[in-house]
Each structure stands twice: as C-alpha cells, then as structure tokens.
C-alpha cells in the first residue's frame, strides 16, 4: 500500500514526469528491422509521444514526431528522401536531426526552413531490433546484451499491445511466487477443465526467494521444495534488467529469452518476447528460421475473454484485471512481495539520481564494458525441465508461425 502520489510517480511516463525522465535515459526498442523491409514508415507511440519510425533512401533509420510542423499532417505517409523524410502534404523535408531542410514552395531565398525543427531521436540496430534514445545528450551506448549481440542465433519475436501500465507488468517479474499458482495450480485447473489431467513443474512449492541488486538490475532467485541450494534456480537465478526487461534462463539449452515491457503511455504497454536460440555447431538452419520472425501474440478470444491456457496469457490476464493502472493505495502486500517493494524503491532511487544529474543504473558509456554483456542466467531452470517442445508449446512461442520448424530442429539436437 502506497500513497496516490507515490503511485503516480511510479506509473506516469509522459514527457516531464519523473518516471518519464528516468526511462528516457535508456535505449528503447521501437520495432524490428523486418517491419521496414517492405514499407518505409511505422507509426509508433512511446512514453506518451506519437512518433514515426522510417527508413530513408540510404537505408538509414530515423524517428521523428508524427505531425508535420507545417500543418500537422502525418509523416507516417511521408516520402523517403536521401537524408530524412518529406511530408506528403506540401513536401517539407525533415532530416534525421529533426531540422527542416526544404520547403519547396517557399521563395527560393527564404530562410524560414532554418526556424523549423521537430523532435527527432537517433535509431540504432542490434540483434534484428531497432532501438531509440529519447533522453538528453550525451547519448549513452546501446547495451549489447548477450541475447541481442550473440551472432548467428535463430530469432523469433512475439509482440502484443496491452491496455495496462508497464509498472504492474514489471512488478510481476519480481514476484516469483505467482508462478507456483498462476502457471502451476491454475494451469493444472484449466487443463482439468479441458479434459487433460496434467501436473506441471511450475506448481512446485517455493521454500524461499531472494533478490540482489547488481549492475544491470535485480537478480531473482528461488528455492523450490526438495531442491538443494546448489541448483541453478537458487545459485544463479535470472535478472530483471532495469528498467523494463526480464531475462529468463533455459532448461539447459543455448537460448535467450527477454521480455521487454515498453511503455506506450500511462495505460498501454508494448510487450515484446525476444527469443534467440543458438544453433549447435555445424547445424544447418532451415530457411524458415534464418530470418527474424515477428508475430502477434493473441490474448483475447472471439468473445473478448482472456486466453489463459498458456503461460504468458495467464500473466496478461492477471496484469489487465488489476486495472489499467493498478490502485496501489488499496493493496495488501505480504512478505512474499518483498521483491516488488525492492523494485519500487529502486525506481525511486534512480529517479533521484537522474534529478541529481547522475546516470541511473545500467547506463553504459564505456565501450570496453559493452562488447558483450553476459547476463547471469540459470541454464537448468526447473520450470523448463519438461523438455523443449512441452515448454515451447505452453508459452507464447506456440503462436510463432515457425514454431514447428524450431521444435524439429531442437529434436535433432540442433540447439547448443
């Protein structure tokens, strides 16, 4: 239970808000490269700002505010140029820095264009994704987390726009016990209702949980009933990468799984599931798996009810039923919520750091530290002990159009 004002500080992400200022200190995903292969623009909304992602004629990506400063038409219908984008309405051209460079119908000697500037943000590519930085100069380095920077991986990326504030999605990641119930007992209940009597590894009881702040976020550990403290789940754990990413380990495979929760605005989150699989040595990757596969993750059925027979759908149901912005003035936290409390405190501390002119947690400026950031990840995660196919078909990966090719490749020991 916190005050209304403290809840607002934690959940408002627009320009000029304390949380908005903090989040703007990080590189933020804005799309996948494949989205702009067959088209030139993509309209997006990030941190309450309406923007247009575009590819110019040289192949460089840019990001500018959606509305043309002339009379407000959308650059989503713009004409790509050699160095920027042109408004379709009257041909004003804007470069990657947001400077207007041409106003074709103004007098030839007019300097009016020099006065015109729009918001523009840099765009960088990594691991098949496009990232932007919306904060003040100097721009920090785009973190080269192992999931993105490992070369030659098979990449599949699920996405969904959820009508919910990003903070309750992040709090879910600091709440290990929910897995025992939502993905364990509730999953078993749902399966029984559908005529399948299954017992899943997720339902094993938590003996204890622990949370440690480290240089990129918080490491989360769990010890389950019957486990010794030498197991990966407790000894290694997996991290919540500050401020909006969860990195999950695997069941002994060369895989990376990032769940990124990008605030669209105060009441919407763009959820990305970025999965990268490392092919075994000498394994021939089939054509269907050679290119990043971007797909939508459905979470509602035809009647508008939540789809809760898969793990991520269960999470989505819980997040959205908490309300667009969870009312934290009326909650009742217990001792198993200590990870959530730690996350809130970490956000408040980092907001204070930004206000004091410091870099917040995880911002990287030293290139030597950024060649490849290897995150601590359990490699023998108990929850994934039922095997690749079973787990893959119980997560949102079931909706990936090339999931069968992925499972087939793994069944031939094609994943390291």
């Amino acid at each position, binding site marked *: *239970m*916190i*005050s*209304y*004002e*403290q809840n*607002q*500080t934690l959940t408002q992400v627009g320009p000029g808000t*304390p949380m908005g200022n903090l989040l703007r200190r990080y590189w933020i995903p804005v799309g996948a490269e494949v989205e702009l292969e067959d088209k030139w623009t993509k309209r997006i909304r990030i941190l309450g700002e309406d923007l247009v992602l575009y590819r110019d004629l040289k192949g460089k990506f840019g990001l500018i505010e959606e509305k043309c400063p002339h009379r407000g038409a959308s650059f989503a219908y713009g004409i790509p140029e050699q160095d920027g984008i042109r408004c379709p309405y009257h041909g004003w051209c804007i470069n990657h820095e947001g400077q207007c460079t041409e106003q074709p119908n103004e007098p030839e000697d007019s300097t009016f264009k020099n006065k015109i500037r729009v918001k523009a943000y840099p765009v960088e590519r990594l691991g098949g994704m496009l990232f932007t930085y919306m904060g003040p100069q100097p721009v920090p380095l785009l973190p080269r987390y192992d999931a993105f920077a490992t070369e030659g991986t098979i990449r599949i990326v699920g996405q969904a726009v959820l009508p919910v504030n990003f903070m309750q999605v992040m709090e879910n990641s600091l709440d290990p016990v929910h897995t025992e119930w939502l993905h364990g007992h509730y999953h078993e209940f749902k399966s029984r209702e559908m005529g399948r009597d299954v017992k899943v590894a997720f339902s094993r009881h938590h003996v204890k949980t622990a949370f440690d702040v480290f240089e990129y976020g918080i490491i989360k550990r769990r010890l389950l009933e019957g486990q010794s403290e030498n197991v990966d789940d407790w000894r290694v754990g997996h991290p919540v990468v500050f401020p909006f990413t969860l990195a999950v380990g695997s069941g002994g495979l060369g895989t990376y799984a990032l769940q990124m929760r990008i605030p669209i605005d105060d009441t919407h989150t763009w959820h990305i599931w970025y999965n990268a699989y490392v092919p075994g040595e000498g394994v021939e990757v089939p054509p269907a798996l050679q290119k990043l596969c971007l797909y939508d993750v459905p979470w509602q059925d035809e009647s508008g009810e939540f789809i809760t027979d898969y793990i991520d759908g269960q999470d989505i149901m819980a997040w959205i039923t908490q309300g667009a912005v969870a009312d934290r*003035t*009326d909650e*009742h*936290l*217990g*001792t198993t*919520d200590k990870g959530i*409390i730690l996350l*809130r*405190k970490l956000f*408040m*501390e980092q*907001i*204070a750091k930004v206000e004091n002119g410091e870099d917040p947690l995880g911002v990287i400026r030293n290139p030597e530290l950024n060649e490849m950031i290897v995150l601590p990840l359990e490699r023998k995660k108990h929850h994934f002990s039922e095997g690749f196919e079973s787990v893959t078909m119980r997560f949102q990966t079931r909706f990936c159009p090339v999931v069968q090719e992925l499972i087939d490749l793994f069944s031939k020991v094609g994943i390291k």
Partner: protein
Amino acid sequence: MLKGRPMQQRRPEISVPKHTRKLFCPNCSQPLLNERSLLVKYWRAQDTVYYCYCSHCAWCGEIVDNARVVISELDEGS
C-alpha cells in the same frame, strides 16, 4: 475583474492511504509520504511493517508496528 494578487493555485494535500500512519524519516525527520519518497505498508503475520525510502536523505529501512513484543532473555552465564 478582481484586482490584487493573482489567485495562487493551491497544491492539494498529500493523500494518506487508508489505515496508513503519517510517518517521518527516522534519519532526517522529513515526511515519508511525499511523492518522491516511498512508504510501502505491508504485513508480516500480525505486525504491520512500513518499508521506507526517504528521497531527502536516501535512508531506507523498515518501521514496524509490533502487535506483540517478544524478547528472548540471554541464558545465564552467557
């Protein structure tokens, strides 16, 4: 038109969540309900616990409303 000083917009009072104490930082005495600090109320069995982070001095820690105080006496000779 009214003359004189312009109307000052009154800042609303900081709200106090239901059943929450107005607590102050044990280190610097600043109020912990301001919008940049954190006062999280949670429960540990019968005890009510307030996890505190003070934005003024960066102190963090817990304040506990004990339902019952139990103190173990030392063994004789120890």
